[in-house]
């Protein structure tokens, strides 16, 4: 799936990838030439459990339109249990953002193993398409959303 390019809107998308599975999966997507839009920028973290909700909120506050977290499949964490904690943290964070009225499609967690270059690429294509359909992020920049 290829995302249609529109001149007006180039989303900013931050992808946190764990070093052992998803970052390697992204590398595999690269060496297999499995394209996805350049809007996705990857930040390498040792484990999905390293991702503090503050990082995600910071990205949104600084103008990101979507944030995706990728880690090893549950059960396959390099550090045994990291992604289980990440799963709970992200579930609760995403639910809270949804509760605040922020579009829940702007956040996503996907488990991508080192062997899943194809999955990495499809996931990113889907996610970018989703962000395109949601348009620019206006709600999450300022959660306090101060009215003048």
């Amino acid at each position, binding site marked *: 799936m290829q995302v249609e390019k529109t001149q007006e809107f180039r989303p900013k998308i931050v992808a946190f990838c764990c070093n052992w599975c998803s*970052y390697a999966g992204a590398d595999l997507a690269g060496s297999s030439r499995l394209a996805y839009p350049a809007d996705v920028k990857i930040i390498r973290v040792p484990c999905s459990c390293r991702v503090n909700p503050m990082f995600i909120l910071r990205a949104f506050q600084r103008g990101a339109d979507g944030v995706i977290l990728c880690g090893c499949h549950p059960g396959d964490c*390099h550090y045994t249990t990291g992604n289980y904690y990440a799963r709970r943290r992200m579930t609760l964070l995403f639910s809270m953002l949804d509760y605040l009225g922020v579009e829940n499609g702007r956040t996503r967690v996907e488990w991508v193993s080192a062997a899943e270059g194809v999955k990495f690429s499809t996931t990113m294509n889907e996610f970018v398409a989703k962000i395109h359909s949601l348009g620019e992020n206006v709600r999450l920049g300022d959660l306090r959303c101060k009215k003048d």
Partner: protein
Amino acid sequence: MQRIGVFVCHCGTNIAATVDVARVVEAAAKEPGVVHAEDYQYMCSEAGQLKIREAIKEKNLTGIVVCSCSPRMHENTFRQAAERAGINPYMVEIANIREHCSWIHKDIEEATEKAVILARAAIAKVTLNAPLQSGTSRVVKRALVIGGGIAGIQTALDIADAGYEVDIVEKTPSIGGRMSQLDKTFPTLDCSACILTPKMVEAAAHDKITIYTYSEVEKVSGFVGDFQVDIRKKARSVDMSKCTGCGVCQEKCPSKKTPNEFNRGLNTRSAIYTPFAQAIPNVPVIDRENCIKFKTGKCGVCSKVCQAGAIDYEQKDEIVTQNYGAIVVATGFDTIKLDKFDEYSYSTSPDVITSLELERIMNAAGPTKGHLERMSDHKPPKSMVFIQCVGSRCADKRGKSYCSKICCMYTAKHAMLIRDKYPDVEVTVFYIDVRTPGKNFDEFYRRAVEEYGVNYIKGQVGKVAEKGGKLLVQGVDLIDNKRILMETDMVVLATAIEPNPDVRKIATMLTASIDTNNFLTESHAKLRPVESPTAGIFLSGVCQGPKDIPETVAQAGAAAVKVVGLLAKDHLVTNPCTAKSDELLCNGCSSCEKVCPYGAISYEEKEVNDHGIRETRRVAVVNSALCQGCGACTVACPSGAMDLQGFSNRQILAEVDAICR
């Protein structure tokens, strides 16, 4: 303020074809802190590294950003280059502009823009980097091999011959694995047992090798150099020190109806059994599920007939705990279940068999004593049909997406052996492709066709049906473009192989990564094929991917060399990217301790000086020798006291800010 140097690699045209390297250099040079920026054809080359070293010296650089391939490729290369020029290796950051940029984007404008942003993120991060010092950890001079097939045996022998202790853990009652079930081996047609049993004996006799059969790995903790492993020795119900292996118990055992796993269920065995005659150890086990004594409390025949008094119904499982410097996974394979392939009538007709079952039928110690016969009526077949790629190369959920690699060759072997021993039997092989890369492999296959008259048909079989004691095969010949309808006596399915289903459990314990097909992932598909990405875990045999015996033995040796290389070290240099707690910010709440998978965090009552206030506080202390740097604690910590060196909160936020700028 850091003095940062940025080095942008062309990687030949790998990067430069899609990323305007000059523009990346130009943009990077404008970033705060950057005092040097240049590009080069191949940064990883000696000349490229020299450029980095020279720039460090000439411009007094304190931090380095290399925009190149994945850090998983060359981070170490550039760290070493930095170190040689006198700066701390952890002052290097990589912007991955190849795998994550030039290789996936086509538009030069887009790719260049992204490369600039990735460079900025790396510059922003390196600005906050601090020199880190590695510690050391011990290396336990002992290796564990999980799986006692040919892969495990060979790995263990090679490690032991280099002078290190090795333990083999084998789930079944004997070592030997799949190879012990084979009759002959391609392409030289050696008798499998004749070449395997000497290795089994050698392993058993080796003073550096300890074999735990009928045992499983139960728990693994620790890390490279110092794994702690619990091995469950299942109760054998036979005292290994007393048993003489006379075999009387097996003869007299009244429970003889258990399907014989070794013969793939083609015949039955007693409840007390050794899987095969050459089993090592030659000590039977009691299969408690099928033993009358264990089921009803009555019987005890084996105990009565055992002159050595070796039978011990009270025996319990035993847990052995041992430390190892390295672990080799050699868990092998099984054939897939064929329940989703109704069209071949495998589950309804006893004369439709898998190739591994045929191995047992053709083996002199097998269910038919080596006579080729139909399992339905024990009559010799007059014609046989072999079907290739059953469950291999499947895009659907019924089978496996990969080529099982060994089937073309063993099918040629079977066809040839049958034609050789029973020239009257007509042999037809339905194939999609015949894949025979390997020394003397294609010659072998051609001999089957040309010398032995095996009829190879390019095409597949759509249906096998039982009809009047015969098997009706409906297939197609794609070359002649005609339907084939033939009667035959036996059908042999070249069934796909899959990793031993237990491997997923083991991979989880070892935190070794595994792919969707349950094959263990290697650290690098080409350059580090016998190492798992998890340090200290090595791969041997089919657990890593389909392979035949010569390849397995070669890989087993390679894994052994890697293990020996590790065990030969006096100590290991540890990853300095560990968690660190700021005692002035620590609340002592224990959240971090709860999420640490390594028990690396403890608490101390410590006197702190918080801006003039001296008081005793409960603070978290990280044992950097145990910490592996996952960062779970950093997020559990509400105050931000716990941080991860090399991936600090501020560093990651700086990357976020740079990307979202």
